[in-house]
């Protein structure tokens, strides 16, 4: 099972030709001609239905971030800080989008085309060959998971842009209500560069079905399964959130003042838009529109539904109330957990995986967090980190063909579990180290926290000079 499209090799071919050109001018033309002939022979088939689906998926993931994620988080903070959260998500999304075009796409999704060209870095990170999308034209194509089925490379660029842009934004929830605006912006950029891009490369970069034996990212080579980003996105961001909230320290008044969410209605809107947008996230990751895409949507419905109901049910059992925030939190936990398994599980497996994630994340948030005493403002670690691990490991189980999953080859649950666990570990170490080091450096240079008075007054007035509600 392979997860990333082969990208148009035309660029490399052209480069090779250019080199040849340098050596012997008279052989250059025929070389080009042959190249063209070969291309014509295997003219890549682009179906506009697939193209449209990728455009739609891209738009859905953007809506999931702004306003989705922004509102989900914004509703959970106190009214004096809501704008600060909205602006952090909005500006973070904007900043990373531009960096994606500048160097992000290139570092994540390029690499050696053949084993001979590979370097020691090839499994870990890409090259700068496609900086500023060099060589990516409106005609470039990228292969999907189906041999011979291509989509315009630019649809892949924008779809992946949205993943790159939402992931750092997820971390914001852990450090809300106290971090300096400049500090969070710098942190997002550094973390994106040194944790997100390598993880994306390691998990998703490969040569595509038509070049399946070419080099690929480290974890991809191990055979780690991550359909839509359980490790790359959720564990990655969740652990970064944990590290960040510990380095940053607790909010003033933590466990003393009433820090109840200022608007659960906003949180609810956010949760719904996350769910809606997540269909693009999970089903768009199939890169084409077919029966499996529908399966991914179905899984993303039922796993989420099961997680929301499970969270509510346990809440009701243990505390006598089934809450709206519980339903929303459960839903997000379910979405996180089904992400790596979206196109790999059957509906039954999805329901079970969702329900388990709902209960485990509830326990992480309600029992573990207070026990350990860190102040993860909006439970980024408890939901994305823990839910991500549940999903990554659970994928090994629900992908089993014997359980209705879509895992291929000589699939054994135990064998896959080991691979998944290793992948999780690599992710935790990468993001943990990068987050810790970069936050310490930023702390030394800029400082991380606003002043006590600013924190009391609220970041909206103190940092952004405005109030949410008048």
């Amino acid at each position, binding site marked *: 099972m392979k997860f990333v499209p082969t990208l148009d090799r035309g660029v490399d071919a052209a480069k090779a030709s250019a080199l040849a050109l340098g050596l012997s001018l008279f052989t250059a033309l025929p070389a080009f001609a042959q190249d063209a002939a070969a291309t014509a022979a295997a003219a890549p088939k682009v179906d506009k239905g697939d193209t449209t689906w990728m455009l739609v998926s891209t738009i859905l993931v953007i809506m999931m971030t702004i306003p989705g994620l922004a509102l989900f988080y914004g509703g959970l903070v106190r009214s004096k800080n809501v704008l600060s959260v909205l602006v952090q998500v909005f500006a973070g999304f904007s900043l990373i989008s531009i960096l994606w075009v500048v160097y992000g796409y290139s570092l994540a999704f390029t690499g050696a085309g053949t084993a001979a060209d590979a370097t020691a870095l090839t499994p870990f990170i890409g090259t700068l060959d496609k900086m500023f999308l060099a060589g990516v034209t409106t005609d470039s194509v990228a292969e999907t998971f189906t041999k011979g089925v291509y989509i315009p490379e630019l649809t892949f660029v924008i779809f992946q842009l949205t993943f790159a842009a939402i992931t750092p934004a997820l971390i914001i929830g852990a450090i809300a209500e106290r971090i300096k605006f400049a500090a969070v912006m710098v942190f997002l950029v550094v973390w994106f560069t040194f944790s997100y891009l390598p993880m994306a490369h390691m998990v998703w970069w490969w040569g595509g079905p038509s070049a399946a034996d070419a080099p690929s990212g480290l974890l991809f080579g191990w055979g780690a399964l991550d359909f839509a980003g359980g490790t790359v996105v959720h564990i990655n961001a969740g652990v970064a959130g944990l590290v960040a909230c510990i380095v940053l320290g607790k909010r003033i008044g933590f466990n003393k003042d009433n820090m*109840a*969410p200022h608007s659960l209605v906003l949180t609810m809107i956010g949760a719904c838009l996350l769910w809606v947008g997540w269909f693009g996230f999970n089903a768009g990751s199939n890169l084409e529109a077919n029966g499996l895409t529908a399966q991914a949507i179905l899984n993303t419905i039922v796993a989420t539904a099961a997680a929301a109901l499970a969270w509510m049910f346990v809440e009701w059992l243990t505390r006598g109330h089934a*809450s709206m925030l519980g339903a929303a939190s459960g839903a997000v936990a379910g979405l996180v957990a089904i992400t790596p398994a979206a196109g790999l599980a059957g509906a039954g497996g999805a329901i079970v995986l969702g329900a388990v994630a709902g209960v485990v994340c509830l326990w992480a*948030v309600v029992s573990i967090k207070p026990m350990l005493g860190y102040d993860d403002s909006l*439970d980024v670690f408890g939901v994305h980190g823990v839910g991500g691990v549940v999903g990554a490991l659970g994928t090994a189980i629900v992908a089993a063909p014997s359980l209705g999953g879509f895992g291929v080859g000589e699939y054994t649950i135990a064998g896959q579990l080991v691979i998944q666990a290793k992948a999780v570990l690599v992710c935790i170490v990468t993001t943990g180290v990068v987050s810790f080091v970069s936050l310490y450096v930023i702390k030394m240079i800029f400082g991380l926290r606003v002043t006590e008075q600013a924190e009391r007054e609220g970041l909206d007035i103190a940092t952004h000079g405005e109030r949410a509600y008048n």
Partner: protein
Amino acid sequence: MKFVMAIIKPFKLDEVRDALTAIGVQGLTVTEVKGYGRQKGHTEIYRGTEYAVSFLPKIKIEIAVNTDQVEKVVAAISSAAKTGQIGDGKIFVYGIDQAVRIRTGETDTEAL
């Protein structure tokens, strides 16, 4: 002249206002407040965190009246606002030296 200030349960406001207009009170001012008292609040839980909310929503009514009307007004409020259950609220009475109607400049009794 006296000021009668009453703290009542929010859903009793309309009844109290009707009782007051019935005895000829023509004006009053109302404020949304929170009360702390014998009536117990509730607990709210947001994910892992519990908050004991001890302040309950109440309505404060302020009425300036002639001294000879105080008794009637207090009686009207008392009976309209009563449910017999804890948290029904309080009435306080204190004196005012002066009252002015801004629109006309009338003072004291004429101002009410």
